[in-house]
């Protein structure tokens, strides 16, 4: 245990075990990003999965909308310490997008409009763990929160849930993304408090 801070009591704790170590609950929806919000016209939007053999699967906005939709309600945890419970999204499960994708790759590099990247093992995107989301709380996803569409992979710190998602590159070797090369943890499990490199 750390040094006791004289006179510090903290807030009443009522998170029912839903708050990972070092996090606190918020009720608003803070914004964090490293640069300006990109401007992405929907008629030019596309989402792609690039396999390790060089094959590319593509979806236009209309094609994405025509796929089966899910409405997950999940808790999200940002590495900057805030957590937000019961966030409700609408989007397409990565399981649906990967249905016709043949791959032996173990790693995925997510890339976004605006140049952002983040990496994670492919298995963390599958089996109901991740979505390409385009609605939040019943409304179109605002640009500042990643609209038109963002990845949502709630079991990892939220920087893995890339805003303005453009595609997924599948690879045989792990390739660290934007924050992962800037001192943050390569995997980012909030329950093991993997915030920074070496945690």
């Amino acid at each position, binding site marked *: 245990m750390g*040094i006791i801070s004289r006179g*510090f009591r903290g807030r009443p704790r009522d998170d029912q075990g839903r708050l990972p170590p070092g996090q606190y609950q918020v009720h608003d929806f*803070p914004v964090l990003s490293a640069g300006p919000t990109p401007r992405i016209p929907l008629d030019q939007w596309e989402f792609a999965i690039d396999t390790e053999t060089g094959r590319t699967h593509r979806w236009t906005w209309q094609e994405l909308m025509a796929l089966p939709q899910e409405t997950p309600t999940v808790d999200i945890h940002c590495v900057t310490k805030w957590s937000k419970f019961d966030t409700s999204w609408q989007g397409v499960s990565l399981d649906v997008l990967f249905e016709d994708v043949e791959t032996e790759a173990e790693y995925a590099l997510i890339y976004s409009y*605006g140049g952002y990247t983040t990496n994670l093992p492919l298995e963390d995107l599958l089996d109901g763990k991740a979505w390409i989301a385009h609605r939040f709380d019943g409304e179109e996803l605002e640009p500042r929160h990643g609209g038109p569409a963002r990845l949502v992979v709630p079991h990892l710190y939220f920087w893995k849930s890339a805003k303005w998602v453009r595609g997924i590159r599948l690879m045989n070797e792990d390739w660290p993304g934007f924050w992962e090369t800037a001192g943050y943890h390569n995997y980012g499990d909030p329950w093991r408090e993997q915030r920074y490199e070496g945690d």
Partner: protein
Amino acid sequence: MIRWRRARLAAAREETPTARTLVFDVEDWPGHLAGQHVDVRLTAPDGYTAQRSYSLATPEGVELTVEGLPDGEVSPYLVGELAVGDEIELRGPVGGWFVWRPAPTPVLLVAGGSGIVPLMAMIRARRTAGSTAPFHLVYSVRTPADRYYGDELDRPDPGLSVTPLYTRVEPRRRIGKDDLPEPGPDVFVCGPTGFVEAVADLLLDRGHDPGRIRTERFGG
């Protein structure tokens, strides 16, 4: 591995009625770059801990400026309770993106409220490094009394120009396109979300390269 370190409050000074600068002695501090932040951890007697991130205000030493938030958990303690000689824990430095390294390229800094803190570290790092890179600071804040580092910013610093914008003093000035220079400088923007979004949009409208705009945002 960024490990937790004991940090003893060595000195403190009031920046505004609600903000306080805290100077810590930290054993074996590895040093940091201007713009980086630290995580602070407080522990209650029952073992409960709370962590928050704060920007470093200086290029050398561990100095934080903390705004006491009325509904905050950690900031009111740091601003109102922590006394010189008390110890807390902190770890860092963190963040390898929102940083300035000495270089001759002109720099534009745009601060909203307490967003001045990491930008002040850059201004101070420029001075410490003897850099002649032209710096321009646009500092949007409610009133002159709400400025952090007012005395220091009022003293001449060759190559640094400052444009203050007061949002609660007549003529109430919100930042606009004309307050921002033409494309050319590297840009760092820090402040509350709405402010950063507005400034980033203005910069794009003005033709700035999105790849040269770095942002840091506080809360919702």
